[in-house]
């Protein structure tokens, strides 16, 4: 169950890993070390299929659940992981900083694949005029394992269904 979440990325990463040796490690880490919290959430959601509280989102266009400003566990986890790995450049709530783009805007134009590709491989834009470096997160398990959740959170922000600040959780734990 946990695995079905990251399997598609995993496959893509493994394919890419042929080109980028560093990434093989990331793929291995995913395989060997599923995130315990995600595992827990996933198993609890399979137990209460009917309860809106912890149901996993099904629509690939809307990989989140937002109800009355409250979000599912994955989206919340994405908010946190975003805070740990992305906020220092992309600013609070994905809203951009003085040097990294507003991701709520980016996701209006980017596909999920393009998003993943940018985060895994990074991007350097260093010229005489700019010094922008988006780091490659392909070997950072915290990011790779939680990328679906980070995407879900940012997508909810980008779609305008989730406001700024720390979202409240549907399962009631604030």
């Amino acid at each position, binding site marked *: 169950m946990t695995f079905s979440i990251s399997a598609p990325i995993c496959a893509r990463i493994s394919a890419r890993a042929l080109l980028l040796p560093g990434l093989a490690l990331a793929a291995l880490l995913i395989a060997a070390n599923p995130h315990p919290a995600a595992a827990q959430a996933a198993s609890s959601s399979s137990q209460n299929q009917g309860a809106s509280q912890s149901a996993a989102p099904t629509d690939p266009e809307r990989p989140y659940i937002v109800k009355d400003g409250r979000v599912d566990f994955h989206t919340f986890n994405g908010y946190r992981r975003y805070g740990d790995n992305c906020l220092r450049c992309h600013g609070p709530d994905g809203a951009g*900083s003085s040097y990294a783009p507003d991701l709520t805007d980016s996701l209006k134009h980017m596909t999920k694949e393009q998003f993943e590709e940018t985060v895994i491989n990074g991007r350097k834009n260093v010229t005489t005029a700019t010094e922008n*470096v988006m780091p490659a997160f392909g070997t950072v398990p915290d990011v790779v394992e939680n990328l679906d959740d980070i995407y879900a959170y940012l997508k909810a922000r980008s779609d305008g269904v989730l406001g*700024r600040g720390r979202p409240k959780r549907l399962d009631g734990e604030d």
Partner: protein
Amino acid sequence: MTTKNRLFAWAVLAAGLSGAVGLRPAVANEELEKMSQDPKQWVMPAGNYANWRFTELKQITPENAHRLHPVWTFSTGVLRGHEGGPLVVGDMMYVHTPFPNKVFALDLNHDGRIVWAYEPKQDPNVIPVMCCDTVNRGVAYGDGKIFLHQADTTLVALDAKTGKVIWSVKDDDPAKGATGTSAPLVVKDKVLVGVSGGEFGVQGHVTAYNIKDGSMAWRAYSEGPDDQLLFDPEKTTVMGKPVGKDSSLKTWEGDQWKIGGGTTWGWISYDPKLNLVYYGSGNPSTWNPTQRPGDNKWSMTVFARDPDTGVAKWVYQMTPHDEWDYDGINEMILADVKVHGQQRHALVHFDRNGFAYVLDRATGELLEANKFDPAVNWATKVDLTTGRPEVVPQYSTDHNGADHNTKGICPAALGSKDEQPAAFSPVTGLFYVPTNHVCMDYEPYKVTYTAGQPYVGATLSMYPPPGENNLGNFIAYDVNEGKIVWSDPEPFSVWSGALVTATGVAFYGTLDGYLKAVDVKNGKLLYKFKTPSGIIGNVNAYEHNGKEYIAVLSGVGGWAGIGMAAGLTNDTDGLGAVGAYKSLSNYTQLGGVLTVFSVE
């Protein structure tokens, strides 16, 4: 110094830079000390060793300040956040930039013509390990050399006349997350430099290099065994008593001190009479306090060290076991002032944690610690006998635990004041302090350490104090009475270093781009000018050809650029509500420009 040498030093002053290159190091330092007393020049980051940011120049006064205007400008060609300020040595001005860390030597005799420009080649992979933009807080001068502390921690000595590299040394390893952002300080025959990377678990240190050849003279860590700390367990004191053996090791679990932070990215000051240098250490790593039990010494600490040996004379830890990211790196201002009516040789420090600490700078005795922003709520007071803050459990992120969102803590992690240095006027005896007025929610959670990856472990949201919407104040502060004398509210945090003149004008810059001059008596605005971008640089003064000038770098960025570019989050802004947050991006865009002002 012999009479002959003294005469020579004065001759050097008169002739500006020429001749300085040939001096011997020890003499060069006395030369530098003298130069720092010459109000026409601005030869070290804070103007003088005592970190006053004060000028004795008297042409600009409260009466004529309204006639100030920009007289020349210079674009650095670099976009990211421009902290620090220019040096003026003789007829030359030295301007630095954030990554790629260019240095320009400008000829003041020819409208700022570029005499030389230096641009190091650095691996751009250092950019993403700089926590809060690619800032640099300025260069240092001494012995005819300009010292640049690059992002990749290389310390390079450039010939002040030609820009040629004389020597260069690597201070630490960016692959581990160690970076260079702070300005070096030349003391005697050494140049001292700190390190950044508290968000990457770097073990902080200050290192002294011999200015002659760049060889290492000493290195003092912020945490670890006594020989790494350069502590003498019997002679190094805290609160008047010997620190004892293993004073740091005892306050960490296992080997955590090795990735313990306590980085040293702020300012350094120096008292030549006491022969002591002073600086502060930053947050312990991670930001999750539950993961690192103990006081985490000596993070968050004021250090007084012998500049010749590095050995610590005394230490004082302001925020034991930090739970809020209140780095202790802000400048230590050395001022002889009245404290409770008694004249003292004080060290005054406006800490991130919102308390203004006053210590005896010879002994480290804690004289006073009062809040310099009334919003500060994480502690009720600092106990002057134990030196410890009385933490309010409601705002203790450790007490409330990991995965719990502790709300309404003031100040926010960016502190009641960050690195932006305050100014001290020996004329008024008051301090002029740029402050942040921001609160936060803070939720720690477990993180694992990976070398070169952020080691943070807390989610934050920031907002103005309840019922207010100004995110900053520029204040005048009196340490004698421990109180704010006046306070000018600003819509955004005041993130620029201040300057105060002997005539009674205080200067600061704002994030929305204004250079402001205010009357030190009451804070009344005398002059403002909107520079091309937000100001996070420090305001400096100098005189050239008989005219007084004020110089400041604009170029928004730094932590302020991250936190405020898109506006702060409104606490209650659950779902798309139009919150009380303001977007800095509505006011200013990137770009480094130096603007020089005078009254005609």
